[in-house]
């Protein structure tokens, strides 16, 4: 048993005893969820700024991509999209395991997510080359690289986050709140992969239209 406030200051009427309330919750009830959503909003805005720059400089080019620059190649980026799509059900499943406090389940989920994130990072390397231009070639190259690279920082950060979380779940001690952390991490995952779908369409598909 842990110590609790037992003394009542005066004022019986309207006083509230909260000792029976739970200490771990999921989703928008929890503080950390709001923290995660806050970072998603800030990072989402960063990606939007990169996209705005890409669209803005387009006005300065008669052809897009500029002459002598081949279209971005699709292979790596498409594999990436498919892999991301495959990862989402895994994360949905991990999130459910977290909400059941299923330790074996979240361990498996976080190991898988570490592996997925690592694969995303490796594929990202190929995607950058698949742009077929350099950041210092012209404004097209700069802005296309900016988008893909800015999103890469999310992938890298997620790789370390998943890895650290998996380590924690194995090495422990595991607390109930860690299940909520896993759940938040799944939410972030949907944001990260969803954002890439939009950016993929912008960078790899829209120049073909």
């Amino acid at each position, binding site marked *: 048993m842990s110590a609790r406030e037992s003394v009542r*200051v005066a004022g019986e009427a309207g006083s509230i005893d909260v000792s029976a309330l739970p200490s771990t919750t999921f989703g928008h009830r929890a503080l950390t969820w709001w923290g995660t959503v806050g970072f998603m909003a800030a990072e989402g805005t960063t990606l939007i700024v990169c996209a705005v720059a890409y669209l803005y400089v387009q006005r300065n080019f008669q052809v897009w991509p500029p002459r002598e620059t081949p279209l971005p190649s699709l292979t790596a980026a498409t594999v990436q999209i498919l892999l991301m799509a495959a990862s989402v059900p895994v994360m949905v499943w991990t999130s459910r395991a977290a909400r059941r406090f299923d330790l074996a389940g979240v361990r498996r989920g976080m190991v898988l997510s570490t592996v997925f994130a690592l694969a995303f990072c490796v594929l990202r390397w190929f995607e950058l080359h698949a742009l077929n231009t350099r950041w210092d070639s012209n404004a097209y190259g700069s802005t296309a690289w900016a988008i893909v690279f800015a999103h890469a920082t999310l992938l890298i950060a997620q790789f370390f986050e998943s890895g650290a979380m998996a380590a924690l779940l194995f090495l422990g001690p595991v*607390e109930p709140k860690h299940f909520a952390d896993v759940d938040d991490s799944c939410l972030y995952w949907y944001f990260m992969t969803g954002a890439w779908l939009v950016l993929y369409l912008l960078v790899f598909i829209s120049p073909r239209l």
Partner: protein
Amino acid sequence: MTAPITADPESVPAAARPGVRELHDQLERVWNDGPGLRGWLMSTDHKSLGKRYVITAFVFFLLGGVEAAMIRAQLARPENGLIGPDLYNQLFTMHGTTMMFLFAVPVMTAMSLYLVPLMIGSRDLAFPRLNAYGYYVYLLGGLFLYTSFFLNVGPDAGWFAYTPLSGPAYGVGKRVDVWAQTITFTEIAGIIAAIELIATIFKQRAPGMSLNRMPLFVWSALVMAFMILFAMPWVAVDSQFLAMDRLIGTHFFNQAEGGDALLWQHLFWFFGHPEVYIIFIPALGFVSTIIATFTRREIFGYPAMVLSLVATGFLGFGLWVHHMFATNIPQMGESFFTAASAMIAIPTGVQFFCWIATIWGGRPRFATPFLFILGFFAVFIIGGLSGVMIASVPFDLQVHDTFFIVAHLHYVLLGGGVFPLFAAFYYWFPKVTGRMLSERLGKWNFALFFIGVNVAFFPMHLLGLHGMPRRVYTYLAGTGWGDLNLVATIGAVTIFVSVVIFLVNVARSLANGELAGADPWGSSSTLEWATSSPPPSYNFAHLPVVEGRYPLWSRPIEPPVVTGLRTDERELLITTLLDARPDHRHRTPDPTIWPLLAALATGVTFIALIFTPWAAVVGGVLVIGPLVAWGWSKPKPGDPVIPEGVT
């Protein structure tokens, strides 16, 4: 309304309440940062960090003020030889950058980080360690800027660093890189503060403080936080683009390779205009709070006030192009942004009328905080009027880049930001330190500040109309600008004296000011005045239960409280977003050194990034260690742990 003000629970003799003393001691053991320098460096207490944040920001205000004084000394007479063009460029850039990025915005977030948990009846911010990290990142950013300045690498391309002047072709050396990286530091700190405030305000309000009972200051902190969240990434990315153009040869702003100098301006001002409201909106919260206290009346039209704040928050994002009227923006666009700029006067006007209506029927007490509020009315309205003038394109084209703009921006920022801030300093100083500031010195402080601001900046309108450009280090005698410039400099000296009086006032009060007690104003309405001054580490022995918009005015003699939170661990009460019904208990982490170390690693990385892009790789690795250590919690006896195998 206005039931008699009740004494705060802390002031009731302990003997009268068996067990209360023990409760305080126990909470103090758990919430205290620990002794000495170690405890200070590890602190995650929002009050301790908030105080440091405010003081740091105020030191930057003083430094920015010294730069302003040097600028004014140089301009006091024509062809003055005090300061050469190169230093002058650095001085006005340092002044603008310091005031905007290191003073005005941080001081507003800092005041909110200190006040919000107390005002909503909670024990700390949502993410205490993140708060410490944010503060240290900000501090390092400021130290970095000033170290560079003293090494003669101070930025010199103006506070908005327009390309191509700031680009690789013209901005030689590392000066602009220093500027760009300072921005990164401060924007990260700002975004962190915003996330703290949103989570705290949404989830930690005392039971009963539904959204429609939230104090107006908390509303303004909330709107500010949302604006930061969606505005600051723009300038953060913009300045990174600039840094990359300079370091690794990208072409974001290089017209020759399809980039665009105007892209810089769009991205900058999409942040820059909202920034003005990020400074102004919390100031409006100060004004509402202080008016309620010193007139002893509820603010007239609470729903209208809240809607105006929210509307200002939205409209603030639709005005940025009015900073670019002198570029080749399509005419249709110019008309649109003129109209939008005029429209934002509406919600501000609504608030002014609500305040006037509040003051009208009351018998205001003219204490120093209230005087500064009256100063805000006068000065801000003049700034607003010149704002309406320059919202019109033909007029703006005449005065663009002249001292008319300098006059306008200072009337707005000093009137809309610094006057309310001084009011807030006088108002909350007793809460933070437990001691009163002297009213006599306060009145001198106010009078000289008010006179000084008008004497310093009013003549600049005229100088601008006479054609004196801004950002010039001197002017010829034949221009006839000498007299008005001398007047402006005398005004600046007056401001300087006034600020010195403020510092003397603070020093004297800290040494032997009158003791404040929990609620020295006797008519305050918000919860921070229900606890002792200064507040204990745990803020409230029992969290309050709120029953109205002005909780201290409607409080029964024996106020209802929350019981049942753990006393052997740091625990927060989390309530529901709309109605603030108790929802769950949240274990919040203990003090730790890791945020400071993570901030240091971040700082080293950002600074090294000025010299090589590889710093991102090395620095990334450097930052990860402290971050993992920071997040790796060590449960204590009594904390629930999931045993192996149990699922």
